[in-house]
Structure formats: C-alpha cells, structure tokens
C-alpha cells in the first residue's frame, strides 16, 4: 500500500502522543492502537502499519545489540551496559549475542550507530587499504 501524506502525518501524530517524559509509554501505545481499531478512520490499516514502523525505529534507538566473539563475563557486561547507559539513556535495553565470525573484540549497535572494535572489521579495513 502506498503511504500518502495524510497517513504519514497521522502516524507521526500518534507517535508523538505515545511518549511520557521522553520515553515510550506502553499503556499509551496500546490505548492509541485500540482507539484506532475501534474508530476505524480512513486508511487505518496503513496508518497502523506506518505507526508500527515508527515505533520499531524508536525501540531500536533505545536498544543496544552487543556482539562479541566469545561469551562475555558478567562483570564486563555490566561495565559495558553502565557506560552505554551513561552515553545514551537510562532506559537502554540490551541484547548480548555471541558471533564467532567477529574473531575478537566487540561490536555495539544502537539505532543506526555502530561502535566497531572487532578484529574482523580491522582486517577488512586492512584489506581495503592494501
């Protein structure tokens, strides 16, 4: 379905209404969705789809995916989490993933920011330079 201006505006308004003190409010989101489903305004399905996408992007902005070559010790995990929360926001959710293809080091992705300190990326950079 093609997203027109009206759909984009409405879904953006919904997104703006789903925050409390700069944080996503689960209760508000569910009540907004419920009211949309019961009222069924024009293009409500497309609005819901677009709203879902915007919420997903917002959630991703507050979610850190930490990849490492080996399982991290809980002490390191808590230190990483503490530093990330200091840099970003307190309500940061985390996900620790073990990816042996990284060879070594860590790769942190929050929204569209990536902090890459893996051996693999350094090798690839070296490959490009050579």
């Amino acid at each position, binding site marked *: 379905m093609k997203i027109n201006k009206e759909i984009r505006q409405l879904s*953006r308004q919904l997104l703006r209404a789903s925050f409390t003190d700069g944080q996503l409010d689960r209760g508000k989101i569910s009540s907004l969705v419920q009211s949309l489903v019961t009222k069924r305004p024009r293009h409500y399905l497309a609005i819901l789809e677009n709203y879902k*996408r*915007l919420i997903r*992007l917002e959630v991703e902005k507050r979610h850190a995916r930490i990849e490492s070559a080996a399982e991290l010790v809980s002490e390191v995990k808590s230190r990483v989490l503490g530093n990330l929360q200091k840099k970003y926001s307190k309500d940061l959710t985390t996900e620790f993933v073990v990816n042996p293809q990284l060879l070594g*080091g860590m790769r942190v*992705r929050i*929204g*569209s*920011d*990536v*902090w*890459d*300190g893996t051996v693999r*990326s350094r090798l690839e*950079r070296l490959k490009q330079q050579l």
Partner: protein
Amino acid sequence: MSSILEEIETKIAGLKTSTTKSNVGVVRETGDGVARIEGLSDVMLNEMIEFPNGVYGLALNLEETEVGAILLGDNTKISEGDEVKTTGKLLQVPVGKALLGRVVNTLGQPLDDKGPIKTETFYPLEKIAPGVIKRQSVSQPVQTGIMAIDAMIPIGRGQRELIIGDRATGKTTIAIDTIISQARLNKAAEESGRQGLSAALLHLRRDRAEKFERGARALRSRKRRCNALHHNYLRARFRHGDESISGAIRRRRHGRVVHG
C-alpha cells in the same frame, strides 16, 4: 621500572585496538538504480554511501526515517537487508596527471585494466562553477576536423555545444571525430612542449536502449493486432445479420477510426 614499561605497553595496546564509530542503515528496497535505506541517521546530503561488494551510492533524498540513494555501480549486487555505511565524504573523484589517458567510471575508478590510479588530490563532483566574470573569455576556436562544421559553425574553446539528431545519424561519430582531431593537435602541441587535454563523457546504456526499443515495437504490433481482431469481430457480427455494423465496417475500410 618494569611497571612503567608495562603501563606504556598497555597504552600502546589500547591505541592499537581503537574502536571506530560508524553510522549504518539497512536497504529496504531497491530498483531502477535507486535504493531506499532505513536508518543512516547522520547521513549528509550528497554524501557517498558504502554498500557491500564495493558498490557506492549517493544520498539524495533525506526523509524522516528513510534515505533515498542512487547507486553508482552494479545494482544487481544489492539486495534487501544489506547493511550500508556512511563514509563522511561528499561525492568526489581523483584528479591529477595520473588520470591522463585513462578510462574511468563515475567514481574515478579505472575501467581500462591499466592498474590503479595513483593521485593524492580529490575534487568534489558537485561544485559551484566560477561566475561569468571570473571565467576567461572565449578567444580561441575549436576545430572539429569536419570541414562542413568548421566552415559553417563557429565553436569557441570552453563553450558548450549541443549535438541533436535522429538516431543513427552520427552524433557520436561527430564527437569521436572531434576528439581524434583534437588528439592530433594535442600531440603536435606536446611535441612543442605544451600539454593538451581532451576528455569525453559518455553515457552508454546500450542494453537499456535496446530494451526500450523492443518494448516500443511490441506495443506497436499489439495495437495492430487489436485493430485486426476488432475488425474480425465486426465482420462476424455483420455476417450474422447485424445490419447496424455495415457502416462501421465501411468506415474502417476507408481508414476512419471506429470506437466501440
């Protein structure tokens, strides 16, 4: 003493394992040489974007949650879900004497198997041209080497020319002949110690052009077939005693348009 050494060593190790920060996005859709990318929150307008497989793109359409980028390279290598990176560089090409006599693509990468182009200077591709007053005035003619053109049309060095013509009438031939003629002059100039320079910008999408041509031909033949079918239908109705059709058939035979 050894503790100081250890401290220095750890500092060096810390420097070596430096972390790089980059801004990434994910390809949502691609087609017609354009990719729509989700993410890339720090991208700049006209910034070069790095796709996987060594393909680059140019960020042109910055929207709230998406970025529209044109692909400069093989678009068949890009697929949905690919991770792309910003480069922090505006679209730029290498410049310098190493470029002389080379054939390059849009990004200044060699297309002629003569090895990499080693230049130190890069110039942005999109740059505001110097004003009319700043520019040197036209003082020298350009010879195309084609007598009919040189005799009738004055062309000045530094001027732009537009070559218009029907297809397969030799527009490219004129341009290539001019380059050859200029190259001859340049060679003569080089021998006398000056440097001559010719550059050609070609946009060759023969496959696309042929496809387009085929499409147009198919459309024309389909239209003809439709007309023939419609004529047969009218004739059939006439044969089955529908007198009201006779006028329509007569009109068709005389080449007039019939609706219905």
